[in-house]
């Protein structure tokens, strides 16, 4: 094995080891990059490697940082984060929960279905797994436990619905993936619509079926009002504002009226108006939302900065070619290699949030997938249909990874907010059906790439 290949592997190992010290991921990435630039410099001098790394080359990091600053696509990020935080503050989730609970109260499992639907509607919310799982958990777990739901069903529902947020547009993960792979944000948003709906549909079907066959685990609410037209109007009144906001944001991108960046700004304004409409807007709320946006955007971008340094050094060491040749030399055929890649993403999801995986791994994996030559129908209007399909597969695989015991992120976030009497075991048991549903969803999307590419192709005709 060549020395520089050993360095590449050593670089990944060093990163992985020091990650567990609990030091911020962004700075481990940046620091390991600098460290290995130094090591490469010395092996060039004394061991005849040709990494070409030295202090001056490392200066390219500054140009790359500037490229991250000078970026139209990423401007959408703080805006979508602002929109999500403002929607949280607008009390939309509480109102939805309150009114939909009555509508679905007459159906077994209705409360869990409500939680799933809120998860889908609020997917626009920050798109950060932790935030949506915590929000849904705080909002709905006490109600479900009080109504006598089985704890594992309740926990599974919250985790499953909370993770949907990273896939369903307008998801900030898709914005970042589009930026990293030079794909169109609009294509990714539209490509995600059917996979997201399939997963949401599978969840709802499972919950209803489970509640039907095991009535004891999803009892009906006591003392519920009969469904009157008043209830339905209340539901419509609570669902219409957030739903129309999201439709306006997505619709204007899909129709090609606005760029995703413009739509994100419109969405931020819309969420602010909704908060005002609900009487929740005041200076304190604005300051809180701005503070949250400032902080959240910064910790996401810190990883951008660390990862750009890491990626620069990795490329100079020949890491890109090493990974490409390692994957393409696998004796499996195109679907076998795809499976290996998704398995790697799945395993990485145990350790890393989607931000790091998107920034470090995706740019390395995408050329390999592009070269595998999957015959994905692009209908003559989509650029890189195979990559768009691949991104959706990664997005679903990541969700599964966040749900999978023992170390999925969503589980730990939920553990932090569960009411007394719910154990980690309840959560573990509860998520298993949702993991299976996600794998089914993943299988459906793998077998039918048109589910991803058809909608974007129609929208741009």
């Amino acid at each position, binding site marked *: 094995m060549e020395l520089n290949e050993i360095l590449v592997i050593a670089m990944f190992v060093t990163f992985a080891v020091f990650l567990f*010290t*609990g030091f911020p991921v962004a700075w481990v990435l940046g620091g390991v990059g600098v460290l290995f630039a130094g090591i490469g410099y010395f092996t060039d001098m004394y061991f005849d490697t040709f990494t070409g790394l030295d202090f001056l080359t490392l200066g390219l990091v500054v140009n790359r940082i500037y490229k991250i600053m000078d970026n139209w696509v990423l401007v959408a990020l703080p805006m979508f984060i602002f929109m999500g935080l403002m929607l949280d503050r607008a009390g939309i989730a509480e109102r939805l929960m309150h009114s939909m609970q009555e509508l679905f109260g007459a159906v077994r499992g209705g409360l869990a279905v409500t939680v799933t639907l809120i998860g889908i509607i609020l997917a626009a919310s920050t798109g950060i797994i932790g935030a949506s799982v915590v929000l849904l958990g705080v909002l709905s777990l006490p109600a479900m436990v009080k109504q006598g739901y089985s704890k594992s069903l309740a926990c599974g529902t919250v985790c499953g619905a909370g993770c949907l947020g990273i896939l369903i547009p307008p998801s900030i993960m898709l914005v970042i993936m589009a930026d990293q792979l030079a794909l169109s944000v609009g294509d990714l948003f539209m490509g995600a619509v059917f996979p997201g709906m399939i997963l949401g549909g599978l969840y709802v079907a499972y919950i209803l079926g489970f509640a039907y066959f095991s009535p004891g685990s999803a009892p009906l609410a006591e003392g519920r009002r009969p469904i009157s037209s008043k209830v339905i109007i209340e539901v419509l009144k609570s669902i219409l504002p957030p739903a129309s906001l999201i439709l306006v944001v997505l619709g204007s991108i899909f129709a090609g009226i606005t760029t995703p960046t413009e739509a994100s700004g*419109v969405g931020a304004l819309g969420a602010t108006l909704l908060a005002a409409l609900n009487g929740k807007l005041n200076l304190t709320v604005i300051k809180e939302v701005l503070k949250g946006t400032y902080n959240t955007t910064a910790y996401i971008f810190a990883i951008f900065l660390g990862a750009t340094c890491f990626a620069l050094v990795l490329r100079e060491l020949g890491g890109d070619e090493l990974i490409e040749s390692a994957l393409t030399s696998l004796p499996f055929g195109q679907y076998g290699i795809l499976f290996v890649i998704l398995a790697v993403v799945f395993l990485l999801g145990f350790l890393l949030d989607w931000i790091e995986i998107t920034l470090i791994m995706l740019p390395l994996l995408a050329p390999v997938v592009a070269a595998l030559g999957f015959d994905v129908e692009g209908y003559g209007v989509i650029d890189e249909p195979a990559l768009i399909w691949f991104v959706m597969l990664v997005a679903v695989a990541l969700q599964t990874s966040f749900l999978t015991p023992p170390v999925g992120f969503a589980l730990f976030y939920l553990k932090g907010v569960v009411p007394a009497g719910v154990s980690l075991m309840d959560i573990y048991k509860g998520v298993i059906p949702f993991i299976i549903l996600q794998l089914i969803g993943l299988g459906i999307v793998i077998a039918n790439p048109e589910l991803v590419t058809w909608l974007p192709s129609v929208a741009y005709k």
Partner: protein
Amino acid sequence: METLAKRSQPRVPLCDAIDSLILRIGQVVMWVNLLLVAIIILQVTLRYGFGSGHPMIEELQWHLYAVGVMFGLSYAQTTDSHVRVDVLAMRLSENAVRRWEIFGILVFLLPFLWVVFYHSLDFVADSWRTNERSDAPLGLPWRWAIKAVIPVSFALLAAAAVSRLIRDVVALSRGAR
């Protein structure tokens, strides 16, 4: 993840001063995102309402975004919000966590900051010397100003990191007494 319990930090006058400066800067700079909303709405209105595009307004958007992002780095450092993988670190003793934090700041964070800071000075100086401006005829002048955000924000981030470093060292030495 940001779930790592925020440990109580010892009070050190110098660190308190650094941290409160960074938090105060943050409370001013955080408004750029509201300004950004306004600018985007203005652009959309001008473009679709009056059919006119303004490169200056478009460029202002990424300038505002970049300022918010870069200055936020030190703020998130001070509020200890940067993403951590703490599955194992949660089980470490408080002193061990502090020692790893000191190690990380010295071995990973500060060298990285130094590299970026050092090279960004030349980057800004080049831009200043050529009086670089936007490529678009109607774009913004003073490209060096937005480039200067890199060294300034990294210096603030370094200050935040040093403040944390000192607090951890102080806490360890007090604990050892």
